[in-house]
């Protein structure tokens, strides 16, 4: 039997959450068959089997997060060669002076097994008291947990609980349950996987980063005219939509060149200014939020950016984003206008230091040279990490973006 460990699903990934088991104990799987879905920092990936064989034991429950390298299941390979290898190993260890390491690991695994074998009364008591067998030390044969072990544990646990209760009692007072407020509880949704990860990171960002906000109103009439002129042909020749968002991403990637501090990250003692301009774009899919990355956005033409956005959005909606697709972002552009928003305050995507929200383009009456004109106006909302950036630089950045947009010449600007 071979133990399979939590794979490393990305460069800096140290842990993974089992989102779903796609197999049961006793199932036969072929090599490359998906065994489980693992979620790591916003990416969900299927873990393929390395062997043809039978799943013997599943060691980690769905929803549990474990470190890379932690055994997650055991498989009995039906490949004879693999078996032989294993057999040979044990034979060797018997013939030679038994290496103490081997012996210890043997013992550990058998201990582990017997602690998993619970007698009916122990199983009943554990479930009655909501206890985890792993937290109780067994004193029985080969470390088995006996009824008396559970009784002793409950006795000592009760003591601890009374202590804890007095400690935590005041903390619990502000907690208001839906029952207390008289709200009828509806569907209960278990928080797991991507949602849990989003929640964790949002709380981290919102509590750690001192956010500051700026908003600038931009006249996008030239942009609208330019797009209207090219969009039909662009769609026809390139196969993707020429969106406003592509323009904004393109312009931001260029302007960031002049404001490198906005394209940096905060590490506590150091601020790392990035050479690459990798723009994260937020893509929402029902209950999940993904932030795939357009790598080296400053290298790309408008067409290239439009295609990237289209490709990443499609991947997100079909759940095909990989860890690589989401890694390495240095600045985020968020298309909040897509759902009609005119003003918003984005939460910075750590360890980045700024996020730009592009709002809806709306036709508004505007004074130009004391004359009233109908113009396409758009709000750009910028959130900055005030540890790294100050209002002046952020304002200059936004001002530059604004000018670039307003100075578009609809007759002479190219879409390529």
């Amino acid at each position, binding site marked *: 039997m071979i133990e399979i460990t939590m794979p490393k699903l990305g460069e800096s990934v140290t842990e993974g959450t089992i989102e779903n088991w796609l197999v049961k104990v006793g199932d036969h799987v072929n090599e490359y068959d998906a065994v489980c879905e693992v979620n790591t920092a916003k990416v969900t990936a299927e873990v393929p089997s390395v062997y043809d064989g039978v799943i013997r034991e599943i060691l980690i429950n769905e929803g549990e997060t474990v470190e890379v390298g932690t055994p997650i299941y055991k498989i009995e390979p039906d490949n004879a060669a693999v078996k032989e290898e294993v057999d040979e190993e044990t034979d060797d260890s018997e013939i030679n002076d038994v290496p103490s390491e081997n012996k210890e690991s043997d013992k550990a695994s058998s201990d582990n097994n017997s602690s998993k074998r619970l007698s*009916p*009364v*122990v*199983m*009943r008591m554990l479930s009655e008291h909501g206890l985890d067998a792993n937290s109780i030390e067994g004193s*029985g*044969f080969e470390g*088995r947990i*006996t*009824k008396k072990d559970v009784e002793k544990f409950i006795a000592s646990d009760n003591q601890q609980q009374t202590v804890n209760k007095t400690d935590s009692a005041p903390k619990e007072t502000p907690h208001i349950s839906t029952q207390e407020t008289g709200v009828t509880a509806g569907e209960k949704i278990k928080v797991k996987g991507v949602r849990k990860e989003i929640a964790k990171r949002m709380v981290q960002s919102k509590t750690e980063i001192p956010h500051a906000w700026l908003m600038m109103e931009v006249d996008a009439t030239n942009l609208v005219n330019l797009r209207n002129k090219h969009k039909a042909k662009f769609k026809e020749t390139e196969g993707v939509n020429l969106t406003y968002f592509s323009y904004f991403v393109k312009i931001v990637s260029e302007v960031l060149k002049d404001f490198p501090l906005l394209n940096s990250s905060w590490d506590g003692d150091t601020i790392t200014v990035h050479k690459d301009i990798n723009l994260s774009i937020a893509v929402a899919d029902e209950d999940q939020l993904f932030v795939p990355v357009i790598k080296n956005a400053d290298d790309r033409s408008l067409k290239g950016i439009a295609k990237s956005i289209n490709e990443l959005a499609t991947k997100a909606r079909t759940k095909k984003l990989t860890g690589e697709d989401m890694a390495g972002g240095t600045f985020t552009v968020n298309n909040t206008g897509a759902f009609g928003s005119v003003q918003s305050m984005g939460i910075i995507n750590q360890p980045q230091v700024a996020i730009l929200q592009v709002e809806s383009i709306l036709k508004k009456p505007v004074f130009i040279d004391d004359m009233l004109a109908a113009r396409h106006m758009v709000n750009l909302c910028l959130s900055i990490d005030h540890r790294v950036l100050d209002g002046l630089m952020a304002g200059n950045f936004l001002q530059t973006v604004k000018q670039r947009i307003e100075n578009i010449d609809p007759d002479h600007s190219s879409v390529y």
Partner: protein
Amino acid sequence: MAKLSYLDAIKDALFTAMEQDDDVFVLGEDVGKKGGVFKVTEGLQEKFGEMRVLDTPLAESNIAGTAIGAAMVGKKPVAEIQFAEYILPAVNQILNEAAKIRYRSDNDWNAPLVIRAPFGGGIHGALYHSQSIESIFVSTPGLKVVVPSNPADAKGLLMAAIKDNDPVLYFEHKKAYRLLKGEVPEGEYIVPIGQANTVRSGDDITVITYGLCVNYAVQAAEQLSKDGYEAEILDLRTLYPLDKESIIKAASKTGKVLLVTEDNLEGSVMSEVSAIIGENCLYDLDAPITRLAGPDVPSMPYAPPMEDFFMMNPEKIYNKMLTLSEY
């Protein structure tokens, strides 16, 4: 209260019952003039005369049949089968007639008889004088089967059996006759049939047994106590009908159950006790139900080492107890 041997306690019960009730009479092989091969009925004939203490022919079927007939017309016979294994010729009378007469006659008739029989080994009796035959009778509704484990119970259960309105088989362990001594209440003393008895309290393991093995189990438990484990010991006292409530309670208390009998392992009354526990106590069990019994060989051997191998003793019980305690 007098200190009596197990044997004298039985004799005391017979004397007391015969004094109390003129309908009580004793019959069996050599019970009269000889006073029984073990001297259980010694002095009985002198005191109560030949008409109430009858020597019978060597015909067990007759002894049982005579007792059944007398019981059906209102007498209270206490028949003795000289050795328990000799009861086999009388089994038809006991199972087909005595046990079923009340049911067959729709309550018009009953047979309030007692059949006493010394059973068990450890006395160099070999094949015909060492057997445990209780399992033959412990699955017949209409019969009651009792096995006392100490002098007081020996008296109390026999007096209860004589007073009972239906047939009772009373198996006395012949090795216990002179081995066990204890306080026995004077005069009328009744130990209710159908009630098991907790003879020792403990919370590590539960030992359920009966007869001479109770004494052995108590000795083993004292030894086990030195290892830091306390055994609960339940004496079944009545093998049929079993005191299910007490069995379930005792088994549930510790979740580790050892069932001890001198009988052969397979199909002994302990198999039934095990089934009761299995059916009722699954979620209280902390270890597999364990049986300790005689080996499945045809009979207790004569050669002393071989007899020891077969026979139950405190050491064997202690070893099993320890294994179970440490499980």
